[in-house]
């Protein structure tokens, strides 16, 4: 059981007013809120520990390094990676994806094939288009069905010996669909293709086990997991990370430097050039501790109840259409009412203190597929309540009346 009162008290922002009313925050898929426990870690870092890591012999530097490396171990354990050095700390999911794309630009040849899905966020489309332009590799797209799931038969037909990489999101940000990742991975591996999963939207709701999945690369952002912005992770199987060239040159990532030749540091430092987001990394670990303290299973169960309730209540509104009704989906509802523009609905909800996302959610191909300009997206977290769902439903009803 989840003690919602106690949990809400952990999040200072949830008690603020917006436009004179209690905030209802339903934009969790864009960024999650931060509990006091994580805020305290950031404050503590700058109050007590602040120093550059990995090179100082002095006490502060050692303590900061220990805290940072402890966070890496927390992340490793959360994702069940075999080794801490298989976790690369980055500035977020986007950088993690670009790091892999950049690495593969030296490994791909013209005629090779990359597969992405029609459900991707722009950040998981554009880097691969750029990679294909650079290498002459070909980009294929797994199509989507009307209920927002991937066409797995089409996927199977695309795979062949030329397929080198498959990139899909674990969960779609625009629709909340949970993709059949085990099947995607197994089928890709049958052709010796590697798989990168974008876990940005999955990790707030699901705890992935990278070893059990046998996934090759997995990426996520801290700020969707109750952590700060500007920090994220890349998991890669060590033997694969070893084959990739460094992403950026700089300090921290080298073993020796002469003007003739630089040798690179071992994992994970090879991919962590420059001074990292130290406070962010430590807070990332604290955020995972916080979520694990509640329990990811407990979180998932509670969110599923919220989702079911919100889906049923919203559907009672005449003309409301939900986009993405996969059986397996996370606590995200993308919807429109009749021909009303999502922007109109979102603006009026904002006046009522209700934060939702409107627009194409950085997934224009999905909106084109449904032939709509965008949707209103309400995304729920474990700190949201059923009463807040009621306020959303009442808010939408009121907005519809005003706009007609």
């Amino acid at each position, binding site marked *: 059981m989840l003690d919602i009162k106690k949990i809400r008290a952990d999040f200072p922002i949830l008690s603020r007013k917006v436009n004179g009313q209690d905030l209802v925050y339903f934009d969790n898929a864009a960024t999650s809120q931060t509990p006091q426990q994580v805020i305290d870690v950031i404050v503590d870092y700058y109050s007590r520990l602040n120093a550059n890591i990995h090179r100082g012999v002095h006490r502060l530097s050692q303590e900061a390094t220990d805290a940072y490396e402890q966070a890496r171990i927390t992340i490793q354990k959360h994702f069940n990676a075999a080794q801490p050095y298989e976790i690369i700390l980055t500035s977020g999911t986007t950088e993690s994806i670009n790091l892999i794309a950049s690495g593969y630009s030296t490994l791909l040849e013209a005629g090779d094939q990359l597969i992405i899905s029609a459900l991707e966020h722009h950040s998981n489309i554009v880097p691969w288009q750029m990679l294909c332009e650079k290498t002459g590799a070909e980009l294929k797209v797994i199509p989507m069905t009307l209920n927002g799931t991937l066409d797995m038969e089409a996927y199977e037909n695309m795979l062949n010996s030329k397929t080198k990489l498959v990139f899909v999101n674990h969960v779609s940000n625009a629709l909340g669909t949970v993709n059949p990742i085990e099947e995607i991975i197994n089928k890709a591996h049958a052709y010796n293709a590697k798989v990168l999963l974008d876990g940005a939207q999955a990790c707030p709701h699901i705890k992935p086990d990278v070893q059990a999945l046998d996934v090759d690369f997995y990426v996520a952002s801290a700020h969707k997991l109750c952590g700060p912005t500007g920090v994220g992770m890349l998991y890669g199987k060590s033997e694969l990370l070893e084959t990739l060239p460094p992403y950026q040159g700089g300090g921290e990532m080298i073993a020796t430097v002469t003007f003739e030749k630089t040798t690179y540091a071992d994992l994970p430092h090879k991919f962590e050039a420059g001074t990292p987001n130290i406070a962010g990394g430590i807070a990332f670990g604290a955020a995972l501790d916080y979520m694990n303290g509640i329990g990811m299973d407990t979180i998932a169960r509670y969110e599923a109840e919220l989702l079911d309730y919100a889906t049923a209540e919203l559907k009672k509104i005449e003309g409301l259409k939900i986009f993405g009704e996969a059986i397996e989906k996370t606590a995200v509802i993308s919807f429109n009412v009749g021909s009303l*523009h999502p922007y*109109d609905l979102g*603006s009026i909800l904002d*006046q009522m203190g209700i934060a939702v996302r409107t627009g194409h959610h950085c997934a224009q191909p999905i909106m084109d597929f449904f032939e709509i300009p965008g949707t209103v997206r309400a995304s729920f977290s474990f700190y949201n309540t059923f009463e807040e769902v009621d306020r959303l439903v009442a808010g939408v009803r009121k907005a519809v009346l005003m*706009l007609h």
Partner: protein
Amino acid sequence: MKTIEAIQEELIEEFSLFEDWMQRYEYMIDLGKSLPLIDAAYKNEDHIIKGCQSKVWVHADLKEDLIQFTADSDAIITKGIIAILIRVFSNQPPKAILEANTDFIDKIGLKEHLSPTRANGLVSMIKQIKMYAVAYQTQLN
């Protein structure tokens, strides 16, 4: 002909009657219904205002040295916003449009729409209106 300032004062007075945001929004939505609509032929890429989550098209003609604006949007609130702007700036000489300030938007309680990051692109709409005024002013000189 009313001056831009007089029309702005008029709007400030009208909006001051409302007690809450709902009434303000309802009025804005009503104003959108009386928007002088853009000719369908101009509803194209050349007339679209970038930087909006909704689509907004604006067209301008010069008649007897005064600019006549027409517009449309696929969102109702945005239509209200552009209708307010057109009520203020249409049927005015280009020079007056160029010299006008837009403080009235704050005064009618729509300040939040003035943020440049706001997805409705109010700032872009004003910019586009002023661009038309620049173009026609040059033509008149």
